[in-house]
């Protein structure tokens, strides 16, 4: 009988943490602990005595885990980054997905593989969501700037909305610039001259 693996997931965002836990549960019979607090992180992880720690690659708290890798007392279980002891293909996949894994010394790679595969898939989804969100936000911002510029042109020239938009588009095309850049220039100039 193989002993149940203990996994710690370090994740501040509750919703994200739950999604990761769900994905991991499907990967096997695991004892999963989520730590969301940054304070006392090293101590909290050490208390759990995990076999595997999963953390967002971008988390500033990752350096704290580095300290755990140095634990050298007889009762300590050194945790090393996965990079050190596994095939680089899997590690590279993990890094591209944005997850980093720290495994306890001596854990066999085939026991980690399914868990890491599940985590990688879930983190890939997160990074897609993140870039989609960023793109939506940027589009919204651009829309706002263009609307403000349009309003400024309408007032300055006493023309209608469609005509103002047409003028902006023409200016952008003539100058080989993006519409939003022309709009931004008008907004900036108007702010300065106010």
């Amino acid at each position, binding site marked *: 009988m193989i002993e149940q693996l203990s996994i710690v997931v370090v994740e501040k965002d509750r919703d994200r943490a739950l999604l990761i836990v769900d994905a991991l549960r499907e990967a096997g019979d695991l004892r999963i602990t989520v730590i969301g607090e940054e*304070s006392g992180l090293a101590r909290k992880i050490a208390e759990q005595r995990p076999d595997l720690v999963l953390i967002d690659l*971008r988390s500033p*708290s990752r*350096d704290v885990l*580095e300290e755990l890798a140095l634990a050298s007392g007889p009762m300590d279980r050194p945790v090393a980054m996965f*990079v*050190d002891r596994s095939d680089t293909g899997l*590690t590279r996949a993990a890094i591209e997905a944005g997850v980093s894994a720290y495994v306890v010394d001596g854990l066999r790679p085939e026991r980690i593989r399914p868990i890491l595969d599940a985590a990688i898939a879930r983190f890939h989804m997160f990074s897609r969501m993140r870039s989609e969100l960023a793109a939506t936000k940027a589009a919204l911002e651009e829309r706002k700037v263009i609307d403000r510029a349009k309003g400024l042109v309408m007032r300055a020239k006493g023309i209608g909305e469609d005509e103002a938009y047409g003028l902006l588009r023409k200016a952008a095309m003539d100058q080989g610039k993006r519409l939003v850049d022309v709009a931004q220039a008008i907004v900036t100039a108007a702010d300065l001259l106010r």
Partner: protein
Amino acid sequence: MTQSLALGYIPLVDAAPLIVAAEFGFAEEEGLHLDLQPAASWSMLRDMLDFGQVAAAQMLSVVPVARALGLGGGAQPLETALVLSLNGQVLGVSEQVAARLGPLAFGAPQAAGQAIAALGGRLRIGVPFPFSMQAELLHYWLERAAPGVCVDIRTVPPPRMAAALLADEIDGFCVGEPWGSHAVEMAGARLLFAGSAIWSQAPEKVLACRRGWMAEHPDAAGRLLRAVWRATRWAAEAENLTTLAEVLAQRAYLDVQPELIDRALAGRLLVSSAGPEVRVPQFLTLHRGAASFPWRSQAAWIGARLAARSGIDPVAAMDSARATFRSDLFRLHLGAVGAAMPRASDKIEGGLEQAEAVAGVAAPVILERNRFFDGAVFDPAVSA
């Protein structure tokens, strides 16, 4: 044709050379486009280097040496041919510890060590990374000024230093700017001294590459080294200080008040939130003297210190350490641009009370004041 190079950095004051190289045309002059990629932790930056996501990165000077000694995580051996900065660290304590210490002159590590030793009890001190000059200076200071004091050295991400003080997770810290000043402002911390008071010429950040990358890409490496070296020269000019502070303060980079950066660059520190402001000589060196030169003796010092704490053979450790500071590549790529080029690749660390000219390849080289707080001298030839 312009060549694009990805470069990793952490938003800190001493990332200035890389940001200046990208922003002020020094890279362009060399036909390079620098794609600067910020990282949130040193572990992340190291992974980016390991897996080739960046060609080079700002790195803690201790990391390439630790890696060469088999300490800490990571997959690839690293090396450097350019030191980005000397010093720039501050050591401070929480409001509570400051109150217990009582009045204490700023910049007096010996007295501060004695006062800390007199407090008794266990002291928890935060550093950004287990393998960092902050950790090394801290160990060095406590060993010699407060022997026997019980200390827990903990890793705390610099932006969290103030929060960790307020949450009573740590009693003090050793960190680079702007995060020490941030802790003073946000958590009422008091600064005891700057890192330069422990060792006035401590290499803090280096430009690190995977071992062999510079040899395999001599053309790109040469352009990169020249661009960054010229950027350190620009960044160190007093007349550029205000511009530099404004650029670093931008949201895309450090995203903090330009005043905080301005103070760090000029070596003016607010010791506590109530003042006073003190001027710290040699607080942060980006270019002056032969600051960019990767002295083998600096690596040897780091190697000897790590070896002593980790129970590794010091002679072998110093040899492996020295090989990570590639003064030969510095000579190869920066000879033609007029970089200060000493004849020797080692120097005696410590024991130099004031700046001194030594023999250089084309012209004499000025060695700046190089002093350990206890007057010790590290001679790599004798120590080896």
